[in-house]
């Protein structure tokens, strides 16, 4: 008897709970549909050093001889605004390395990839990462257009006495 009553009571409560509760339990797809596109900065997969061209779209930069004077002027203008805060034209390191001799140390492709594709280079290129360990400041991506980057390269070549 006792057991029977207990069962009845249990059922009554269960029904009461259920009848007014939310019975629909449809699963819904995740509300968020889009993914942030920026890659996290902290997952470096270093490219073995020796890949002298670096990481980026520049795989074959055509150098001109003699130097292009227009590009040199444009390169200097960009340098003054966007680069000079950290890089000197001598071999003295300021925040970043001095530019003297950079065109001898690096390939034209590596330079242009580094100054236009800065974050990916810092995340993947072993040479860039080695520099980061020395300078301890991630080079800012200064959002240079391709032609700005090319002009800067010309300005560097001029600084290194190339012709």
């Amino acid at each position: 008897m006792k057991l029977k009553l207990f069962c009845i009571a249990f059922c009554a409560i269960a029904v009461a709970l259920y009848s007014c509760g939310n019975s629909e339990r449809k699963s819904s797809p995740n509300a968020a549909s889009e993914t942030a596109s920026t890659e996290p900065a902290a997952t470096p997969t270093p490219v073995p050093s020796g890949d002298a061209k670096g990481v980026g779209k520049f795989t074959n930069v055509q150098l001109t001889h003699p130097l292009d004077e227009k590009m040199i002027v444009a390169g200097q203008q960009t340098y003054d605004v966007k680069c000079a805060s950290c890089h000197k034209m001598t071999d003295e390191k300021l925040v970043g390395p001095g530019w003297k001799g950079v065109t001898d140390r690096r390939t034209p492709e590596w330079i242009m990839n580094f100054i236009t594709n800065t974050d990916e280079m810092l995340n993947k290129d072993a040479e860039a990462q080695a520099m980061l360990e020395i300078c301890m400041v991630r080079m800012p991506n200064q959002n240079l257009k391709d032609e700005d980057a090319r002009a800067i390269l010309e300005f560097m070549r001029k600084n290194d006495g190339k012709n």
Partner: protein
Amino acid sequence: MKRLSFLLISCAVLGSMQSCKMKNTESAVSGDAASKVYVAPGKYDEFYNFVSGGFNGQVTVYGLPSGRLLKMIPVFSLNPENGYGYSEETKDMLKTTAGYVPWDDQHHLELSQTNGEHDGRWLFANANNTPRIARIDLSTFKTMEILEIPNSAGNHSSPFITENTEYVIAGTRFAVPMGNEDVPINSFKQNFKSTATFVSVDKNTGNMDIAFQIMLPGMNLDLSHAGKGPSHDWFFFSTYNTEQANTLLEVNASQKDKDFIVAVNWKKAEEYAHAGKGKRLPAGYIHNTFDEHTQNTTSTLQKEVLVLDPKDCPDMLYMIPCPKSPHGCDIDPTGEYIVGSGKLAALIPVFSFSKLQTAIQNKKFEGVYYGIPVVKYEEALYGEVKKPGLGPLHTEFDAEGNAYTSFFISSEVVKWNIKDLKVIDRSPTFYSVGHLMVPGGDTRKPYGKYLVAYNKITKDRFLPTGPELAQSAQLYSIEGDKLKLLLDFPTFGEPHYAQALPAQKIKDKSTKFYDIMQNKHPFISLGEKNAKVVRQGNRVDIYMTAIRSHLTPDNIEGVFVGDEIYFHVTNLEQDWDVPHGFAIKNNPNAELLIMPGETSTLKFVPDKQGIYPFYCTDFCSALHQEMQGYLRVSAEGSNVPLKYGTNATDTASVLTAQK
């Protein structure tokens, strides 16, 4: 046995009470709510939710469905976070004819529309206290323009817009005398006027300009909305205090059984304005615009306003009687139904735009109110929603012909069908909901899916934080017939109206940084080479640059007590999310936050000699703590020469200024 039976019954009763009342979150939320609001790390929300800040004067932006706070946009109040209203560039944004107003009350928001749909260009915001309208750019989330409204007080029924953003509207909550006349308060009936101001919005630039002002009898205009589709040419305002009381409104403005909804034919008003039917009256008001290129505010004083008097403009205005101090005045997506919400009523009247037109044609009027025809209630009425709840405030819509109304007194949101006026579902809010919002819910094409209730009382919803609490917003799913509570999230200030639009409408055109080559700020340092200090009399302009991780110049000498020093800091970075901050010790003014490519100016007038350190306040790199400098301030009349630089002693570029 007896005892057992009693237990059984009481258990059953208890059980059923608990499960039906749903007075706490545990029982009100169904099991899958969490998955519906969970936005995984690194994923984006589906909607931007722009929420008015109420008494904090700003606008906050949340993601839906997560309820995550994304940004506070400074609009009508000083903002210590980024120097808005403090910096020399932005301080004039808060300029009014009454001087600099540091803090206002921001109630309603409206996203710009084209053909009755969100076009993702601008967000308009009202200032309720010192009447103004602001325009925020949705690519920069920055306040670009603030326009003061003359002959107004309590700019409440604002900033609602017409379907193509032809006009943004301002309306007076407080009737006041035109032109700041000095009159006895109890001469309200003779001297006090309400005004409905139509501000034109330039299609391309968004620039605002007062086109005309309609002078109405003294009463309180409360809320408004534009017509849509067939009612495109019309604007509707709710009113209260048509009793015209000027004291103890709680009692004296609740005497009449019905107040009015004012129906304004704005196309007609526009014609009258063009035809010279208005009068140009003297009125001072200030118009502030922010120029993206010079990065400065231009503040201009306007001196007159075109006023239309209904006396001279027949067929422009009609009154629709509406029960009990109506608050919300909301138009359904088809443009046919006008929902008035009598905040002291226990029913919701729904008016028909086509019936209103017929009634006007056939002159079915019950009288006039100060010369304005009053349409018979039944002639404009489509029907009433009976016993929907107590104290209806605001209504939003979905795309399936349903309306959602908030009820302050009975603390609930109610879903009802517009065609048959039947209640479909109701759900409690925690507690005392004011506005509610469905994404796109006041446009021609509501997106639906969610409803957010912005509640007036927070009480026990979150961990207690002393007497002062955040506000409570609640997210409901409106998919299916039932309203389902999904989430509580705190909001700041006191949200009134809000807007939401799908993220993809604006997210890809968000500005990431300012192109420094486009920076036309008069005090820019375009590159470190151009950093300098220039003295003219006792004014000292410091052209300073900031880049990870140093400031140039970072050693400055030769300035004196009483000098007016301006730090013009240019952030040379050209990458997303690399702001620099700037602060100098003991500056009673403020600090700065400078976005990449931007120039910002901080004024400092030292009144004591000494060494004043300055530094970057926004953690920018591993060497952020090194990003600092010193200003030497000498006694007035001393002969310390002007000298400045960064690393100047051991480089060739020692910069020593000419005296």
